[in-house]
């Protein structure tokens, strides 16, 4: 029986402006999202979409001076009410994050084995010996057969793909119930990406974990997730099952993203979305996508659309029925 692990409810985040005296800049606008245990949610967006900031909010790691409204509930408990200690425990035991660049998140002077155990030992979750054994077992389960050798190596001795697998192990060490993966394979070769993503999916499935997978690659998100949430300019524009959204998108932005991607099988004039992706604070009023949307009407410029159920998924658009479905050839 799946229950909601993570509930983001109407989250809005404003950051301090860059210069002193600048007002607040909105980066996330009214985002609502749930991740159930055992469910993989793909959060897809381009620059300025707010997808990374959303994960930071979930981790409780918003930058200094950020103002957040709305509720973030984990296992039903609002984490914004947590004090320092509770938040620390939440981050140590309940959730884990996998970052895009493993080299930036490992200490080059610390051996892999020591790196893996230091978190759980410091949080007093298990003894050193138990932690070592767990690290060893986990390394093997992600396909690193010579785990013993790898544990005494330094990060620079491992390739990018191997190191990212180590980061997956790092995330699993504390037995979290939710994994946040922020573009974990963007920096990897495509064959390595395929392996790493397969391993991640396997671990999520075997341990019935929840996952929020952030990426700009809609095809990748569709392959690994159960449901998709598409973000634009700090807001979710479409949210639903992969099948519904990927096969028949109902938001012009989602459709535009799918149509603008070059295909392996044919050469055609790409249907590019004019303009460039905006951030939340660059949007004046009305629908954030209106300035680039082929279906934009006066209503779109005046009135910001709210999320409503259309065709088995949620869309924030005034004209979802008019969206031209992309013709896609199956692989």
């Amino acid at each position: 029986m799946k229950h909601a692990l993570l509930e983001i409810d109407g989250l809005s985040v404003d950051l301090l402006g860059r210069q002193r005296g600048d007002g607040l800049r909105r980066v996330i606008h009214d985002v609502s999202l749930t991740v159930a245990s055992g469910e993989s949610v793909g959060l897809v967006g381009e620059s300025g979409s707010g997808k990374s900031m959303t994960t930071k909010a979930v981790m409780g790691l918003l930058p200094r001076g950020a103002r957040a409204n709305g509720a973030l509930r984990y296992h039903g408990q609002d984490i914004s009410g947590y004090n320092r200690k509770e938040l620390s425990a939440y981050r140590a035991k309940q959730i884990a994050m996998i970052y895009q660049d493993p080299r930036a998140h490992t200490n080059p002077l610390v051996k892999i084995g020591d790196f893996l155990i230091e978190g759980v030992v410091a949080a007093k979750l298990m003894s050193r010996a138990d932690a070592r054994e767990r690290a060893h077992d986990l390394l093997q389960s992600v396909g690193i057969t010579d785990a013993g050798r790898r544990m005494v190596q330094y990060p620079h001795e491992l390739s990018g793909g191997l190191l990212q697998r180590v980061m997956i192990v790092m995330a699993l060490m504390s037995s979290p119930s939710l994994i946040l993966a922020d573009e974990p394979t963007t920096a990897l070769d495509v064959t390595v990406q395929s392996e790493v993503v397969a391993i991640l999916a396997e671990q999520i499935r075997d341990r019935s974990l929840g996952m929020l997978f952030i990426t700009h690659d809609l095809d990748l998100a569709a392959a690994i997730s159960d449901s998709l949430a598409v973000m634009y300019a700090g807001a979710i524009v479409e949210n639903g099952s992969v099948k519904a959204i990927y096969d028949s998108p109902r938001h012009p932005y989602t459709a535009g993203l799918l149509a603008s991607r070059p295909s392996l099988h044919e050469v055609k004039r790409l249907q590019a979305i004019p303009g460039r992706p905006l951030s939340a604070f660059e949007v004046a009023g009305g629908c954030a996508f209106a300035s680039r949307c082929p279906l934009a009407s006066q209503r779109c410029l005046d009135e910001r659309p709210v999320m409503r159920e259309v065709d088995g998924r949620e869309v924030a658009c005034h004209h979802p029925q008019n969206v031209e479905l992309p013709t896609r050839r199956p692989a």
Partner: protein
Amino acid sequence: MSENILELRNLRKVFAARSAGMSAGIVAVDDVSFDVVRGSSLGIVGESGSGKKTTARIIAGLETAAAGTLDIGGESVDMSRRFNRGPSTLQMVFQDPFGSFDPRQRIGAAIDELLRIGTRLDRTARRARVADLLEQVGLNASHAEELPRNLSGGQRQRAAIARALALRPRILILDEAVSALDVSVQAQVLNLLADIRRDTEITYLFVSHDLAVIRQISDRCIVMQAGRIVEQGTTAEVLTDPQEEYTKRLLDAVPRPGWKPGRGLAHNGSGT
């Protein structure tokens, strides 16, 4: 007169060993040969370490090579020297839109500087040409007054293309030129590049790790792995009906409709 604008034979590049502990050095490019037809577009595809970037940089004259021959436009090029290809023969668009321009120089001034060195146009003529180039790449003439930091990544890359076209090169080398762009912006730039090729006689050498982009932008392609060419042919053939194991593996690994990630596709199980 040959149809080929570029003929490369037996290119080999070894980077010297950096420390005493390493052996003979890294063979980045090993026995690479290919031709490029005038006005066509050649895609060079590979993963990291394949040698695709090095090959492109050697052709551009940014790196030297001790072995191999290169003919451009029927004339032999000395690959042991750098920067001797000629600004109106060959230009390059780089991957990083942010580092492509001097941060302190306005876009128009940057292009103007090139024109001042490479042509005999006077100030008015140069100004007009800068405006033309910017319009050609989908920017406004007013963008000439902008500093690079005030432009978006897509705009910067368009400006980089404008600059590369300023001296009317015969060959344009694009080194992962769209890889750092958002998907929706990438499509705009790919369309632009297709338009430019349609409107001029320029030849493209397009380096990328992205197979779909290569399919979109190139007529022929070569697939590189560990410094060698694994497969080459028309892009349609290579990507639709690959003959080599490696090419098939690459294609299998690309996320697309109906794709499922799989293990055992990379070089070896625990080695990647």
